[in-house]
């Protein structure tokens, strides 16, 4: 059960008590209100299924290259969804999905996935872990690549401004970084990721992605 439901019940309890004082009309209004709250705060199963078929109901994707959504910040989630809809972030699959969703759905889905248990860390390629960790924690001084940890935090859990990375699918991370590097993805709010990716080689990007999948995200 999500916290929304708890809140919804408390509200309906108060409102039901109140309605006892004003009689039948009040009760009718209350029931209507409860129905609206319920409609506003649950995701229609068919809409969740739109996401779940690739990303999993719990936001843990079993499809390589398809990102985990569990634990992702709602601010980031909603912005990406809006960008898919506007075509600012390009993905034929995601754009097709957008036709069935509106702003309210974005918010509900964002909350749903934020509350799921984040993905279990993966193993990562042992040959690249050391280099990847070094890049994540210290950056690459020679080519002025900032440390990932600066914005996404040392444990990779991110902030409201910078998304969670810990445990994310490496194939997905590499693809996105290469898209930033080439400019194929250009919806980074502050142009920051393009600047970072352009300073990195593909080998460096792969190494850091192999490290990120091993991160537990301790703060969660």
């Amino acid at each position, binding site marked *: 059960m999500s916290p929304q439901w708890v809140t919804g019940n408390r509200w309906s309890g108060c409102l039901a008590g109140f309605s006892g004082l004003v009689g039948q009309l009040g009760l009718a209004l209350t029931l209507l209100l409860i129905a609206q709250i319920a409609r506003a705060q649950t995701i229609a199963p068919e809409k969740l299924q739109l996401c779940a078929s690739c990303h999993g109901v719990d936001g843990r994707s079993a499809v390589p290259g398809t990102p985990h959504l569990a634990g992702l910040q709602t601010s980031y989630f909603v912005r990406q969804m809006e960008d898919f809809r506007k075509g600012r972030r390009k993905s034929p699959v995601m754009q097709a999905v957008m036709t069935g969703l509106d702003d309210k759905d974005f918010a509900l889905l964002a909350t749903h996935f934020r509350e799921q248990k984040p993905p279990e860390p993966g193993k990562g390629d042992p040959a690249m872990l050391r280099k990847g960790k070094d890049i994540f924690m210290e950056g690459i001084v020679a080519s002025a690549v900032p440390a990932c940890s600066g914005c996404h935090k040392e444990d990779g859990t991110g*902030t409201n401004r910078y998304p969670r990375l810990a445990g994310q699918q490496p194939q997905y991370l590499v693809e996105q970084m290469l898209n930033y590097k080439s400019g194929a993805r250009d919806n980074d709010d*502050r*142009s920051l990721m393009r600047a970072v990716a352009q300073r990195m080689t593909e080998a460096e990007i792969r190494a850091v992605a192999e490290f990120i999948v091993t991160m537990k995200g301790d703060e969660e």
Partner: protein
Amino acid sequence: MTHHITTTLLRARVAISAVAHRLAGFLVGVCMLAGWSVAALAADQLAVFGDKRYEWGKLLPEQVEVFRLTGDIERGKEAFRGCRGCHKADAGGLSDGTYPRLSGQHASVVIKQVTEVRAGIRVNPKMEPFSSDHAVSPQEIADIAVFLESVQSTRDNGKGPGTLLTLGKSLYDKGQCASCHGEAGEGKAIRAYPVVASQHYGYLVREMELIQKGLRGNSHPKMVKAIAHYTARDIEAVADYMSRMPDYRLALQTRSR
């Protein structure tokens, strides 16, 4: 502390509490508006030295905007997250000087430099994307500036080889360094002259070389003139001396006891 009566403006600034910093940030801004316009009167005759297109003392519209804002240390700490990837969480930078130490730098200096990097006046392609108006808002620049002024990095800064310190001290004291950057390397907040004490040796050398070559882009004409005749050895000597000056806030406290 018993030195209140003899407290100078700078010592007072050292003692400012975190709360008072907000007010101070605003006051510095107001003072700078006044200070810089005074400096601008003399800019014409000095503009012949390097960085010819740059007029020290002419405030950019965005600088006027930022100086009027009130910075907040807590918000600044969060906004600084975007800078930490290079300058590190304690704002201590990298000891080899690739990234300068920003902890304890005057808010006015941070504001001046960030706004001029993003305006393309101070030439810094490494930092430019991360200081762009996409990356930090004017309010965030004000917040970051007061945050940095309040921070004290506990890590050692990078120092030079220590072989030319007598020359370095003599150049610093008898040359024109101390007249602007202060005897303790404390700079001058009101004029946006930077703190140089405890800065990384590598950074000081690199920036002086850029200033000499006219490649930094936003140097004070007096600064360009002061080191125009320096040899590479002079630069190393004075940089080493500055890198070994203790944190000016500690130095001024000790001296006033």
